[in-house]
């Protein structure tokens, strides 16, 4: 702090020595309503000019003034012992990688996408993805610190996750994720068209990298689910769909809204406990995406059968 104070003192000294941003340098009296009876520029040594002075920066004063407006400063948590262990393998400085595989021998090889007003997609082209971010505020100040993706690979479902433990590793994460995508990739997400994809577009732009998601087919399951179940369920959140369609009920799940705090805590030198739970949450999200996709894939056939049965009933009447 004393270092800062001395820097500020130096700054103030430096600032005091310089004339203000060239404004009003030739002012005579700068009376709000009226100027005085003298016309023309006053001599440069007028007392008004000596008054013009750049404000100095006094850190204590700055904090106090900011405090009047914001009353900053929450009490700090007392230090205690905690774990800093993080799962996965560090594949670049600050970038960690996790991979899990789940057997799924009978996944359909061609997925019917008529539910999303599309034709179909080959199983090997599908990539389910979901990000965990530092918040919901939007704009250039929100970033993804974790990206999870699931695809069908080697006869099973493969879930790969990237997350960063330093901010500097963001570029490496974006580059790795881009490597998982090619021109044939069909993206699958839940609300990703409005949230994850634009957010990643911003991050790629800020990192001066080409956005790999541009131009790809993107199946956002939120909209078809909402069309089909809006009248049926209390809401169409992902976990509602997961519970009703896949019969999955999460235990000890860290709510998504807690993710920013969990990551920040770790970033600022705190416990990794909740960050581990974020990874588990994200893992479940992308696994469920694949389940929901297969479920939705079946809707067209199911509806056709119902229609047929309906018309059979009609014939019997």
């Amino acid at each position, binding site marked *: 702090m004393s270092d800062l104070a001395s820097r500020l003192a130096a700054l103030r000294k430096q600032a005091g020595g310089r004339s203000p941003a060239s*404004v009003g340098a030739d*002012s005579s009296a*700068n009376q709000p309503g*009226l100027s005085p009876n003298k016309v023309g520029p006053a001599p440069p040594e007028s007392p*008004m000019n000596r008054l*013009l002075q750049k404000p100095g920066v006094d850190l204590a004063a700055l904090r106090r003034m900011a405090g009047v407006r914001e009353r900053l400063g929450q009490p700090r948590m007392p230090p205690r012992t905690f774990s800093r262990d993080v799962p996965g393998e560090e594949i670049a400085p600050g970038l960690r990688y996790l991979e899990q595989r789940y057997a799924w021998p009978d996944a359909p090889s061609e997925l019917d996408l008529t539910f999303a007003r599309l034709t179909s997609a080959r199983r090997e082209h599908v990539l389910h993805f979901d990000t965990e971010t530092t918040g919901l505020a939007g*704009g*250039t100040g929100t970033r993804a610190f974790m990206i999870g993706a699931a695809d069908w690979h080697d006869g099973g479902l493969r879930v790969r996750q990237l997350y960063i433990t330093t901010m500097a590793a963001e570029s490496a994460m974006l580059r790795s994720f881009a490597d998982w995508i090619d021109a044939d990739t069909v993206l699958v997400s839940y609300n990703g068209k409005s949230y994850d994809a634009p957010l990643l577009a911003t991050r790629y*732009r800020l990192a001066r990298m080409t956005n790999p998601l541009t131009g790809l087919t993107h199946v956002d399951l939120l909209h078809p689910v909402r069309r089909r179940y809006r009248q049926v369920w209390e809401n169409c959140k992902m976990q509602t769909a997961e519970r009703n369609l896949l019969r999955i009920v999460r235990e000890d799940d860290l709510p998504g809204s807690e993710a920013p705090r969990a990551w920040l805590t770790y970033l600022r030198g705190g416990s990794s406990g909740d960050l581990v739970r974020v990874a588990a949450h994200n893992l479940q999200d992308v696994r469920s995406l694949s389940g929901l996709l297969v479920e939705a894939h079946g809707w067209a056939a199911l509806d056709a059968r119902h229609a047929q049965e309906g018309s059979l009933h009609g014939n019997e009447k």
Partner: protein
Amino acid sequence: MAAYLTSRLTDEADSALATNHDGSTLARRLSDKYSDRVATAFTVFGREGQFVPLPDNLPAGLSKALTAHGIERLYSHQQEAWEAARSGSHVLVSTPTASGKTLCYTLPVIASVLEAGAKALYLFPTKALAQDQVAELLELNRAGDLGVKAFTFDGDTPGDARQAIRLHGDVVVSNPDMLHQAILPHHTKWAQFFENLRYVVIDEIHTYRGVFGSHLANVLRRLKRICAFYGVKPQFILCSATIGNATEHAQALIEDEVATITRSGAPSGDKHILLWNPPVINPDLGLRASARSQTNLIARVAIKAKMKTLVFAQSRLMVEVLTKYLKDVFDHDTRLPARIRAYRGGYLPTERREVERAMRAGNVDGIVSTSALELGVDIGSLDAVVLNGYPGSIAATWQRFGRAGRRQQPSLGVLVATSAPLDQYLMRHPAFLTEATPEQARIQPDQPLILLDHIRCAAFELPFVAGDAFGPDDAGPYLQVLAEAEVLHQEGERWEWIADSYPANAVSLRSVADGNFVVVDRTEGRQTIIAEVDYSAAALTLYEGAIHMIQSVPYQVEKLDWDGRKAYCTRTRVDYYTDAIDYTKLKELECFDGSKAGEGSARHGEVHVVRRVSGYKKIRYYTHENIGYGPVNLPDQELHSTAVWWQLPQTVLDEAFRSRQHALDGFLGAAYALHTAAVVAVMAEPRDLQKAVGSGDGGWSAQVDAAGRGQIRAQDGGLALADALERFLPTVYLYDNFPGGVGLSEPLFRRAPELVTHALATIEGCECKAGCPACVGPVLAADENREETPRALAARVLRLLGAAA
């Protein structure tokens, strides 16, 4: 009714004057007939137009469009601007009102769109001006089939249109607030726009003064930072009305050199200016007729002389009252289209657009406006301008007069003085208006709290790297404060945004509170929104019982839903209007720091400013007699802010002054002088930093009354006498007129001894006798021979506060 008939009779008497006239003959006739009222008459001579052919290097399509649009040659300053812009300079155009400034930037912008597919960003201080601009661009576009896409981008732009504007807009017309809150924090969505951004046009830069201007300068720093990220360095083209330091102000805003163009090539006619003092109607009391009656008379005569006339009033209420009086004369046949219209803030945008259109089309003979028409809203040309009261600044006075004058025809401008000391002073000393240079615009973008706000926003937009400057200074200390507040995270050399918040939403560029009130007409079961009133004006105009006028049609407010921001009213027919009674008082909440100041003390701390509307008066039309009061029961308008204040102990005052009234007058004069010095010291606008005189314990507040004397208001709002107070502890406050403060008063406290000394030097060096607007505030003629002048009293207070002579 009798009064109305009298006014009709006066009118007959005036009819001798009222055949067709131009500004010159009417000015002469008025001066002859009312020589006792014309304090000064003078003429601002017009000039010949200087025309040049369209430049050869204009793109062919643009030349064709201009010709098709009826523009076959340029004024010389338009050509100068074209050349300066083409040479790559930042350009400032500071020519008089209505000299064709728009074309100065339209030409280079459209040329770059046509030639290089470049983009341009326009910033206007109001939405209305932005819409005018787009309409004009589209007309030129149509005339030449140019294919240039121009859009407004403001708070009203629907979400689905925004995407198209970002991708396809060649010219995006917006305002500083949108740039700050919607464009910069989402710059990646605007990537294509920024990558091709060639010009940034900022019009009406004289409006960006004080804190607002300091904010804009910082928004421009952020804009330049984003532009650098996308590898562009746009050129700025700035326009200003006449102010004392347009070039310096432009350079302070963009922090770069500008090429200034001030010589207008547009032709103009002679302007005949009259300074008009209402006649004395009661010589014993020295009472003059009201400014309102005189403004009404002059406007009536001018309109009868078939001159298109614009009346400027100082308040929205006065706009409505004057509109009514003129309508009573000119619009009594309601079947005909209105000849008289009102224009002011608080009308619905559609209403304002409609009035503008009617004015441009020449269908309106008289318009009554607030300062809303000071800016470049296009209403066509006018023959006469009447100012009901001095607008408060030389620059604004000339800007308003500048509204009159078609081409070469002579025009008339009349400034009608009110009884306010400042107006009366002007009548006695017209050189204050005629010989002094207009006010200077001042900004202080490096003011720490403002800087902190914008570094916060900038860090959200792009990370800072150690050693990065923001403006001229190293951003380091600010980044550290922000990291301590846990909105930034430092990692190695980089400071990155980390909080889940959108900082631009918490930083307002203007000192206006959000939350407009809508006024709903419930007459006969209707539910129509007839007006929108901003928060700050609501308490003064929408209390229950208020007569709220729109185009002088009276509605009575029946119910005010304060939390829901709605006022319900019905159409009414009453012969009175209402005027709110309000007062302001100030109370210390916490003292941060204090020091001795001569025999007294100077302090700095947090204060609570309360503005209360305690009731309203009913005032009958024409006679202006007070026919009753009504109570108002509204929440206080509260402001928590920071302030610096000075006090002297009662014993010192008792010894130094003959009476408490003398001491109080001294404090009011000292407050005026300190405020003047402080405004210069921190480069603030007078409105950003307010002054107040009151009791140190918040018990009473004091103001200068119409007779030029200090007047004390007790806690309950009633008048009190200084001698009757139990404790007498007058205090001068200077406080930031922004919620939470903006950091103006803190440096004032640090420099308190210097300020007091400077204020005294100003008073002692002043050439006036008893006091004037340059030192302790205007004084009335009667006070010039007072035994103890306001000037001497104020100087005594400042000496007691430690001012070194």
